[in-house]
């Protein structure tokens, strides 16, 4: 494969491109869906393809194809070049790429448990172990859906500046979503698990332990009341902090979105959060769901500091935005698969822990909410965010009180970051999948924090 890709690069150079890169991928994916103790379907798929990206006269031309023979790959290079030329007449500001150290490397994996060697029957057994625990511990359980996926992927990256990277990747992921009803109350609980180190994800999260946690959350919600709407002080748990850091702040600091007018554009180098806020996007956490060695532009991953003690000091870049900001690429260019061109994506994004105990976070709050687990989050470039919450509690006189359901919080990201009063030490990362036109595997997280006020949507 390697030789063919290098020849294709030469062809591009002969045509007169400014830059050409080829990404070739081969992947084997196994996925399983179970519902209420039964196996709905087991899937196993194989795919292979090439993505060719050409920069010519300041414009991008891209062609993707599943045909990886010599003739098809060469034709893809020519077509991509033609697309770029045709577009170049319209380009006002030409695309330029920041310089990077071009790498030649071959990354091989040594997974503790390669998912390809685990029999499907064992995977089904582990998944159904979760299902069985949920149903047996909570008799009000109505449904339990579990989706499991493992991917083994082989990737080649070459470009006309000399990069030549071969890397293998392993992803193992599963998600549990269960519902329960009692009288007229509907409760649901869900969580995702993921790893890039192998099938040991089930060692770290044994099926029974996962089931116990889901059953517990369902039980709490069935007892829960609806919240009061309005503005309240709150303690956000690690899981909610993660989604807030990712959705509300992280996207604003993806340099393509920053350039597109996100509210942090005018604030670079300035104070945007309280002193206790430090945020990283880190591709180097071993085994974490958002970790990898090289991004899809062949740039080595790194631990990128975004906010230091309240000051925004960095953004997440690809080569194009790094050039625009006169900065360095940070290894954040990722593509879902060969069908897509890489765009700026997060990796493992988290708030750095500090030294408060959880009780100290609660203590000064007379009445407020403790938001423990999220249901979904979304943000807008203008800095408004929204986070749905699946598990929440009242805080009364500094202590966790009764459970609350169907809750969500919203507000302005920067105002909220300024209102972070105290940061705890109970750090954790949470695997997830992020959509930005393409899917990316990520983690987000942090410790619990106390926020002076957030807007709570409720029906009280």
């Amino acid at each position, binding site marked *: 494969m390697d030789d063919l890709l290098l020849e294709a690069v030469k062809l591009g150079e002969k045509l007169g491109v400014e830059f050409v890169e080829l990404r070739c991928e081969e992947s084997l994916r196994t996925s399983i869906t179970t519902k209420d103790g039964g196996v709905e379907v087991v899937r196993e798929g194989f795919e292979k393809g090439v993505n060719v990206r050409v920069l010519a006269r300041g414009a991008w031309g891209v062609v993707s194809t599943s045909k990886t023979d010599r003739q098809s790959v060469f034709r893809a290079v020519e077509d991509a070049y033609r697309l770029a030329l045709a577009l170049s007449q319209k380009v006002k500001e030409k695309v330029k790429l920041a310089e990077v150290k071009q790498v030649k490397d071959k990354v091989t994996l040594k997974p503790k448990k390669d998912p390809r060697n685990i029999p499907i029957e064992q995977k089904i057994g582990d998944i159904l172990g979760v299902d069985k625990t949920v149903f047996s511990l909570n008799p009000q359980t109505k449904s339990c859906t579990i989706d499991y996926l493992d991917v083994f992927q082989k990737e080649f990256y070459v470009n006309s500046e000399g990069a030549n990277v071969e890397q293998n990747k392993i992803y193992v992921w599963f998600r549990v979503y269960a519902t329960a009803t009692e009288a007229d109350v509907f409760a649901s609980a869900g969580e995702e698990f993921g790893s890039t180190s192998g099938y040991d994800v089930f060692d770290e999260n044994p099926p029974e332990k996962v089931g116990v946690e889901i059953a517990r959350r369902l039980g709490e919600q069935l007892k829960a009341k609806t919240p009061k*709407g309005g503005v309240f002080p709150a303690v956000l748990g690690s899981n909610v902090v993660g989604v807030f850091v990712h959705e509300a702040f992280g996207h604003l600091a993806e340099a393509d979105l920053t350039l597109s*007018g996100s509210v942090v554009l005018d604030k670079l180098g300035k104070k945007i959060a309280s002193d206790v806020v430090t945020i990283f996007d880190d591709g180097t956490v071993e085994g974490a769901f958002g970790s990898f060695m090289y991004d899809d532009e062949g740039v080595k991953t790194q631990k990128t500091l975004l906010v230091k003690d309240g000051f925004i000091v960095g953004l997440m870049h690809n080569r194009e935005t790094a050039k625009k900001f006169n900065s360095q690429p940070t290894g954040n260019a990722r593509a879902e698969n060969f069908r897509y061109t890489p765009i700026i994506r997060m990796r493992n994004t988290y708030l750095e822990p500090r030294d408060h105990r959880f009780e100290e976070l609660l203590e000064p709050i007379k009445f407020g909410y403790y938001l423990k687990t999220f249901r979904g989050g979304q943000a807008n470039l*203008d800095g408004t965010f929204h986070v749905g919450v699946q598990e929440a509690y009242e805080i009364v006189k500094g202590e966790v009180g009764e459970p609350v359901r169907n809750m969500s919080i919203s507000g302005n990201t920067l105002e909220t970051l300024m209102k972070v009063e105290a940061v705890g030490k109970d750090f954790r990362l949470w695997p997830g999948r992020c959509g930005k036109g393409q899917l990316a595997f990520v983690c987000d997280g942090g410790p619990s924090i106390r926020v002076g006020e957030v807007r709570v949507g409720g029906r009280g």
Partner: protein
Amino acid sequence: MEICEKAVKLASGFGVDEVEVYFSRSMAVRVEVERNQIVKADRFCDEGFGVRVIYNRSIGFSYTNHTNLKSLEETVSRAVKVAKAGKPDKDRKGFPAPSKLPEVKNTYDKRVAETSLEDAVEITSRMLNSALNFDKRVLAFEGLTVAGESLKILVNSNGVSYTDKGTGIGCLLSTLAKDKGETTPTCFEFEHERTYKINPEKVGVEAAKQAILSLNAKTLETGFYEVIFSPHALESLLYYTLVNALKADNVQRGKSKLKGRLGEKIASENLTIVDDGLLDGGLNTWRFDDEGTVSKKTVLVEKGILKGFLYDKYTADKDFVESTGNAQRTTIPPYSSTPHIEPTNFTILPGKNTLEKMFEETVKGIYVLHLQGAHSSNPESGEFSVVATPAWMVEKGGLAYPLKGVMLTGVIYDVLENVVEVADNPRKVGFLVAPPVKVAKVRVVGK
């Protein structure tokens, strides 16, 4: 078609009970806008097979994007292997039997299929320039034009052997406006059609106008208001609440509040909803669904009365009814996954009044263009709590001023009961075909 039939024969040789081979091919050209300029063009052709087999009432699936006979053989044997690893399901009856394919209109246009890169660049430029010429404060931060065609072939061992092709063309522009240190929320407008009848200038102007009209937003007192939902807002709100509750799978599994309520009043009599798989020029109109049931029109809610649910073959067999043809493969690419229940063209029948007339008759109301966070709704209970942005205060017969920091909270079933009026101008937004809808007494959390 021949290779699909060959694969069906091949799989039958493995001793499986039933087999289905699905083939899809999508070809498209796409031009993208980033920050006020056209920067990227791409072209792709994506084809592959998805094979489902039933062995002892257990389903196995495999796919590949390598469309030669050898990969197909490997794919079939993978599907058989994983089916044997699965567990039997006593409710699993089998794949659909053949039936007469219905005719559909305006789903294929040669001109769309033949859209060149130059055409796509031209459409994109017209859209972009209309937006930028509208007002200097507008930033068109992203946009795209895409045009292409798809082919679907479905063959199964019960004798189904169907093929259909369709086209689609669309352009979209996302904007925001910046003025005196204020940034508006992101706005967007698009048109998406099966035939060559998009108006890029209109998309550009509308996208720009929305952003400009969102400047100088004010906050709002918490309380109950009349809310006029745009089709875009309805699309996100309804999907995560009502649509999920109408899927037979969720009904059967006790995940829907509509379970056991057929024939009962669940909405205002102003509301009639049909899922119309045969809609003329519908974005989701095909002659058959993604497991080989012929497309049809299904009444879901008639003048507020619950009349039906959305079924695929499996859930229909469980309830001893006919599938409504709602099995879809929604992944990109479609051949890479198994079908599940989704609406086709989920249509809210229009009313008599224009949107302008609706504004005139609104005393204290809010017009909501887009919602944020609808995916965090509770699909089982129908409870939602979402941000309305952009949104405007409606006073004196028109949009008075933009609003910020507005959350809408409630339960979808209360919203359905409180529909006071449906406007007369439906449009296609994803799975939804609907006009703006006015709802009384929506709880709004403001400052």
